[in-house]
């Protein structure tokens, strides 16, 4: 149908926008404003009540639930035109899921991306906290698959709600005690349960225990998004995050004696194992934070260039 006059009227109604995001073909931050408002309300409650899992009307995102849809919703609800985004998965900026999420954030906002925390303001991550110390400039957004730390000791959601409301964590302590007695160590691996601000027990996503101390009285804001479970929670800066353990049982992070990064020789970062290709090959270790590893290597090779690359 040829309708030039109608087209003219239609074209007239397309708003002229001189904002930095004017070239985008989608809403700034993809979500409609209505969705953002609801996520923002939940985020503010989460910060005001550290560790409480705030229910929210999780939106379906262009990534599957379980692939970071909660973290993505937080990032898109808070991101502004002057942010610089870094996205990692397992510590790696080039991980396939990290790449996918970064593409979505960048393409729907037009903001720059970086792999270096120094240059970033918004860091979305799955399963790691960057090795570099983060500070006031940074907001760390963690993707959470299962936000409920008490699920292992209680299946009924009504009872779980009561336990959190009354800060009744007795059964959690009992389960940790039994674990210790039976196995000699507390066998919790990643997502170690922590008490936030002396009030709520949270699941520290599945970050390794290695990263847990860096949430304690941190200088940055940490926001946790569970899209499928429709929960948002937060650890504000300068807030106590204490791993649940007993006085005589020190909290243990992952350490493998003698292991060092094959690429940068570090023994002070979280290392992951690269198994050998054959039975005789013992394999080796590398840093999980690939950008930190790269800079560490360059620092060792060219000490004069300083920290930046």
């Amino acid at each position, binding site marked *: 149908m040829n309708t030039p006059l109608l087209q003219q009227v239609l074209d007239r109604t397309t708003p002229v926008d001189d904002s930095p995001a004017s070239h985008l073909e989608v809403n*700034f931050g993809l979500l409609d404003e209505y969705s953002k408002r609801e996520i923002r309300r939940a985020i503010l409650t989460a910060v005001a009540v550290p560790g409480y899992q705030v229910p929210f009307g999780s939106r379906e995102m262009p990534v599957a639930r379980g692939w970071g849809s909660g973290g993505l919703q937080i990032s898109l609800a808070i991101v502004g035109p002057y942010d610089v985004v870094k996205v990692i998965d397992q510590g790696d900026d080039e991980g396939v899921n990290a790449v996918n999420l970064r593409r979505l954030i960048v393409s729907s906002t037009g903001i720059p991306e970086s792999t270096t925390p120094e240059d970033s303001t918004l860091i979305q991550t799955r399963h790691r906290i960057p090795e570099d110390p983060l500070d006031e400039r940074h907001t760390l957004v963690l993707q959470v698959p299962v936000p409920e730390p008490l699920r292992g000791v209680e299946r009924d959601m009504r009872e779980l709600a009561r336990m959190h409301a009354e800060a009744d964590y007795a059964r959690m302590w009992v389960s940790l005690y039994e674990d210790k007695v039976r196995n000699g160590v507390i066998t919790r691996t990643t997502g170690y349960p922590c008490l936030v601000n002396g009030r709520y027990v949270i699941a520290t996503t599945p970050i390794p225990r290695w990263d847990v101390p860096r949430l304690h009285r941190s200088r940055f804001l940490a926001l946790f998004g569970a899209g499928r479970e429709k929960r948002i929670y937060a650890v504000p800066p300068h807030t106590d995050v204490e791993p649940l353990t007993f006085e005589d049982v020190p909290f243990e992070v992952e350490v493998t004696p003698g292991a060092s990064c094959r690429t940068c020789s570090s023994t002070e970062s979280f290392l992951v194992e690269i198994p050998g290709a054959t039975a005789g090959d013992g394999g080796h270790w590398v840093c999980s934070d690939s950008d930190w590893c790269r800079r560490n290597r360059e620092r060792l090779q060219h000490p004069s260039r300083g920290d930046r690359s």
Partner: protein
Amino acid sequence: MNLAIDPEARRMPAKVAACRFDALESQAIFKVMLDTTSRPGLILDLPRRIVDRIPSALAPLVVLADVETRVHVIDTPTFAWSEAVTSATGARPAQLNKADLIAVPADGREHLTSIFTFAHPGSAFSPESGARLMIGVNDIRSHGTSDSAGVELVIRGPGVEGERGLCIDGLTEADVNAWRTTNSRFPAGIDVWLTTEAGRIVAIPRSSRLDVVATWPTQERK
């Protein structure tokens, strides 16, 4: 029907438009709210272009208000902001003790003690139903001086390294006591943003512990 000649009704469309923020304005205001909530007592600035067109205390409310929320906005002596806000956002007007979002512009500030008393703190089962208050005050400074007015507070808790001082011209000790009583059943409680007409903003969420360390008479409203 004398609506047509009511000067307030004539101003309404422009004021409603002033209460509509675009995506980037909303983000900028929200970011300031997030930063202040994360660091209670830290003084930041609202975007200039917003405080130029509406009372600054309305900005944080409008950013969060929509058809899902119930709002209680105090009208000022010069304008019915409640109507402008609800028209612009679709939020439902509600009584003080039923409202999710409450805004008290600086020149509508009366009965503040009862507002702190009757604002809904939610419950331990749903802390998210606690009210958020946005209150316009005369002045916000990080510490008291010889010409101070109002109250000087010390804030401790999440988001504060050690403690942080804050001097608020526009609050009385009675206000703060009512506020602390409402927040005494954490995690139930109210979260508060204080703003000045110059666009300064500070947040004191319910997780903060407040102590009044000095008081002065509040200055006359300008």
